[in-house]
């Protein structure tokens, strides 16, 4: 097999990546066992693997996952409804769009998650603080991508609709929205990612809710293998969520 063929193959790079990960984990295990790494700071990887079962069974991870999912789903539904509506409003009222689009973009880059103490005062230490933080963080990309998607609808589609004498609501439902849907979903996906990051992050910071609180609880109990296992679990959930939304985005993308 030539070098070029190895690079082109799908399995070799995958095996190299996974193999390197396994070697790194084994190296850490060995270094801890010989005392080169303090086991009171970094637990043995084998202990972390063993801790998974304990964390899943004893810490009621199913209920915590359900709670985090509920918070992320509620915030996700809110960013979709409010974001698409606001995007549509800004698309229809051009002067409003010109006046506020840069503000929405600035809001997208602003560190809004730092407002969580403010939200704690307004909503109390409850799921609503977490949901609203997720909502604020995830809203700007949905608005921006909705405008982009609607503005990017091909002129010929709109002309076809007009030639059929469609009313404005019909034009939106039959032409504009379906044409803009792939771009809108890109915004919804970005918004959902920001929402999930903020939901788990705020759960951790205010020690309330599902998976984020679990990490905080385990860290405060100095349960090192449990903390690492919970972090791995949250990473796994994030990656699965990311992959699923990416798959849906690809499915919605029009064929060129």
């Amino acid at each position: 097999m030539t070098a070029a063929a190895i690079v082109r193959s799908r399995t070799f790079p995958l095996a190299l990546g996974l193999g390197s990960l396994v070697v790194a984990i084994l190296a850490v295990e060995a270094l801890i066992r010989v005392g080169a790494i303090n086991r009171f700071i970094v637990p043995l990887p084998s202990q972390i693997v063993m801790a998974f079962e304990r964390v899943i069974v004893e810490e009621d991870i199913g209920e915590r996952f359900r709670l985090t999912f509920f918070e992320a789903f509620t915030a996700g539904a809110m960013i979709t409804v409010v974001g698409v509506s606001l995007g549509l409003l800004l698309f229809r009222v051009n002067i409003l769009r010109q006046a506020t689009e840069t503000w929405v973009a600035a809001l997208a880059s602003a560190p809004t998650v730092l407002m969580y103490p403010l939200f704690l005062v307004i909503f109390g230490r409850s799921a609503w603080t977490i949901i609203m933080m997720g909502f604020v963080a995830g809203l700007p990309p949905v608005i921006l991508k909705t405008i982009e998607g609607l503005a990017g609808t091909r002129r010929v589609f709109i002309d076809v609709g007009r030639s059929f004498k469609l009313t404005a609501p019909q034009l939106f439902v039959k032409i504009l929205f379906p044409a803009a849907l792939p771009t809108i979903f890109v915004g919804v996906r970005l918004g959902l990612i920001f929402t999930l990051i903020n939901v788990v992050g705020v759960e951790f910071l205010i020690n309330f809710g599902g998976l984020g609180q679990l990490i905080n609880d385990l860290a405060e109990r100095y349960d090192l293998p449990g903390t690492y296992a919970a972090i791995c679990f949250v990473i796994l959930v994030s990656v699965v969520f990311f992959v699923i939304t990416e798959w849906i985005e690809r499915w919605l993308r029009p064929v060129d």
Partner: protein
Amino acid sequence: MAEAGRLRLTAAPPAWADPVTLVRVAIIMTILLAWEAISRSGLLYRDVVPSLTAIAAAIVKLASTPDYYWHLWVTASEVGTGLAIGGLSGLLAGLVLGANRMLSKSFEPYLYYLGPTPKIIFFPVMIMWFGVGPGSKVAMGAISCFFPIALSTAAGMRQIDKVLIRVGHSFRANAWQMAAKIYLPAMRHPTINGVRLGLGVAIIGTLLAETKLSNRGVGFLIIQAFSLFDMPRMYAMLIVLFVLAIGANALVGRLGGLSSIRQR
């Protein structure tokens, strides 16, 4: 008659009379008036929505407190150090992944999928590794900015025009010259974009860590204002922080010449 053939020049309206500016002013005024009305109405607790004058007074007081600048300096130095460590390692990782297709296919998916995970969950681990002092905050900043910078650099490296690389080779440029004269100038735009993204998330990572466990820095001041229920001060700090964060982001873009690139 002579007037009829003369080209008529209409004077451009002054900037303040531009309809977009007027709409912006109207929106801001509406928000401020609504805020003040809610504050005075007593519908919500007065301290939750303090009056605009109370917030303005808190901003002035904050700006005239030398102690605030010390905390601001602490946060800025943590963010700066985190950005330097995470940015340089991200740049290095991006260059390696961008230059080698095999390594990119093997390891870049891990960066790609780890990038959008909430980094704050690593804070307990960072405390164990680097202690409760500034080290753990710097580490949070570094972890946060590593991913966007590495991914942007790798993408930028792959987008370099092959002709430029061949020109470099034809001049027999060594590896250092290739990096300094070809790769880095050619991938300036995506790299600066990555640094901008990295700066934003480094600020967030560092400040969130400060709000969780610290006795110094702006994050600590925000959570202290929350604990004391000093709402005008908390609003003042959030407003100043937002202005500084957005300003820093714009400054990085300007220094990196993003505006000139866009105008071309």
